[in-house]
């Protein structure tokens, strides 16, 4: 069996709804080009929730926005984004407009600023139905009430005529979700959907997203810098660093044994209840995410990495099944690291017990 045949066989088993291949995005700025995303590939299967995690400025949001061609005209984009096999990169605006809101819908971070302050929420939800489903304004309003109920807004018939400022933060985010799922999109891109909300509200929002996946079979790409959110909701995780995917794994595998040094750093930098309890200082990753004008043929994490050596600075590690001594049967667990963490990360407390 040749490589191509094998790839075909794999594709036949689970055709992804959304397939991103080798996506690169750069922006010309006054001080030169900034490379924001470099060769990102990821798949989203039907009904799957994939989490994308990384620090601010690692290219998560740019990746998300480029999926439906929402980046400003100045962005230079290469690679491929296929929705059910249809190429979206380089497609005409008019064709992309039919995809946006209907096939691929977005939920953004700040529900206060992301909703139009001068239109009622019913109008804003109805608008999507009016353009994509050719519904009348009246029918769209009636459907908006149903959608508000679906996302768990009490007395939706009254809320539909409210303006965003009359709703709480959590309610607003539910409105955003109702708007996003109005046309039953195949893919929902949620860019930091819970970041601006407090923890109890956050749990409610994640529950709504999970419900939608279960009931409507929507595939969800959830972008966050919060590992807790990932652990809570995602099936698979993509870790990004400085515009590249550095690790990709099923969620349990990633938390159990991260391969990439950056992922390991991220995990030890997030507090675990009980473990830190105010006694122990959280470990941080020294340094900052670099802003790159050219993506070097090197590991971009090398400068901050405890295990970096000459090889890391000379050639970029490919994203592949990590060689860690061959004891782990790593199914779909890939890392771009020359010196992956040698064994499953052992919890010191567990070792002590």
């Amino acid at each position: 069996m040749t490589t191509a045949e094998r790839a075909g066989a794999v594709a036949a088993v689970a055709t992804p709804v959304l397939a991103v291949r080798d996506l690169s995005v750069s922006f010309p700025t006054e001080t030169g080009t900034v490379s924001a995303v470099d060769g990102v590939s990821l798949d989203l299967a039907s009904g799957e929730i994939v989490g994308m995690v990384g620090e601010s400025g690692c290219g998560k949001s740019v990746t998300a926005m480029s999926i439906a061609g929402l980046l400003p005209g100045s962005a230079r984009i290469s690679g491929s984004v296929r929705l059910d096999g249809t190429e979206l990169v380089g497609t005409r605006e008019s064709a992309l407009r039919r995809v946006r809101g209907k096939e691929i819908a977005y939920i953004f971070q700040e529900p206060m600023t992301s909703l139009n302050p001068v239109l009622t929420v019913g109008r804003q939800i109805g608008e999507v139905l009016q353009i994509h489903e050719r519904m009348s304004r009246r029918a769209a309003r009636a459907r908006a009430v149903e959608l508000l109920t679906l996302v768990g807004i009490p007395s939706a018939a009254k809320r539909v005529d409210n303006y965003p400022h009359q709703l709480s933060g959590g309610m607003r985010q539910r409105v955003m979700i109702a708007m996003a799922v109005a046309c039953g999109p195949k893919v929902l891109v949620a860019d930091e959907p819970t970041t601006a909300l407090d923890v109890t509200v956050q749990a409610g929002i994640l529950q709504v997203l999970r419900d939608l996946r279960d009931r409507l079979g929507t595939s969800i790409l959830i972008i966050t810098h919060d590992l807790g959110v990932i652990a809570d909701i995602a099936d698979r995780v993509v870790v990004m660093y400085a515009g590249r995917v550095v690790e990709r794994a099923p969620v349990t595998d990633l938390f159990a044994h991260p391969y990439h040094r950056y992922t390991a750093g991220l995990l030890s930098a997030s507090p675990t209840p009980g473990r830190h309890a105010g006694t122990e200082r959280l470990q941080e990753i020294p340094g900052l995410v670099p802003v790159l004008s050219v993506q070097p043929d090197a590991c971009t994490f090398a400068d901050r990495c405890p295990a970096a050596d000459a090889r890391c600075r000379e050639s970029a590690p490919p994203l592949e099944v990590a060689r860690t001594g061959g004891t782990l049967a790593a199914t779909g667990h890939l890392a771009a690291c020359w010196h992956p963490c040698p064994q499953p990360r052992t919890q010191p407390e567990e070792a002590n017990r």
Partner: protein
Amino acid sequence: MARYLLTRAWQSALTLLLSTIVVFFGVRALPGDPALALAGEDRSPEALEAIRRHYGLDQPLPLQFAQYVERMAQGDFGVSIRTGTPVSSMLTTALPVTVELSVLAILLATALGVGAGVLAAVRRGRPAEWVANGMALIGLSVPHFWLGLLAILYLSVATGLFPASGFVPILEDPVDNLHHIVLPAVILGTGLAAIIMRQTRSAMLDSLSSDYVRTAKAKGLRPRAVITRHALRNSLIVVVTVVGLQLGGLISGAVVTEQIFGLPGFGKMTIDAVFQRDYPVIQAVVLLTATAYIVINFFVDLLYSVIDPRIRVTGDPA
């Protein structure tokens, strides 16, 4: 709402009273004497004295003021010292001219200013923006009286497209009326159009880069719907504010424009009255202008809450 209206009414009454006081004593503080202007050739002290007595100008000022306020309260604006006609009948002929001129100027300026402002914001960094910015700069820097003279010279005298001066009441001949008033209205509106354009442009640039416009795009809306329904609606508050604030400038501009185009409006009446020290006319004109100002600002405030549901008229802080 009731409380808000009450507060507003009280504030308005106070403003009107203050402007009455300022104008009444202000015009009398000016050098010059209406008796002298009226006496003509016969400037004998006896003649002047007779004139002063006739118009009550020989009374002490506070008494004159009290009498004036009393008559005003009864709706009596008095009689023009210069012409002897009641001020109220002068107002009924002059007011429609100025109102028509100003309303037309505001409409033209808003249409032009908002249109050009939106265009400049949407076509940022492209020729359309440079043209719009250039026009706004010209509109702001060239004084209207000069622009008016140029317009008369080229559009009226040289080509005869528009009448150079004069006015036909709208009820007499609406077409001819428009023909007379459109050029002055355009000239009067230029400055306002430029200001509206610049404000609209910057407000649009803000809202076009906002999160809700990103959401609108992500919904798959056409650019036209994104621009009008989402970005422009959020920019309108700025336009309304600017128009409200510029109203004073517009009224003083109307005075000059009417003078240039020989329109028998409020402005001409004011200037004539000031030159002749025609106290009752000046007082009436100023009081009416102040009232117009208050009323229009009230409507502007009400309009705010129509445009932006976050703004509520309650009188107490939200």
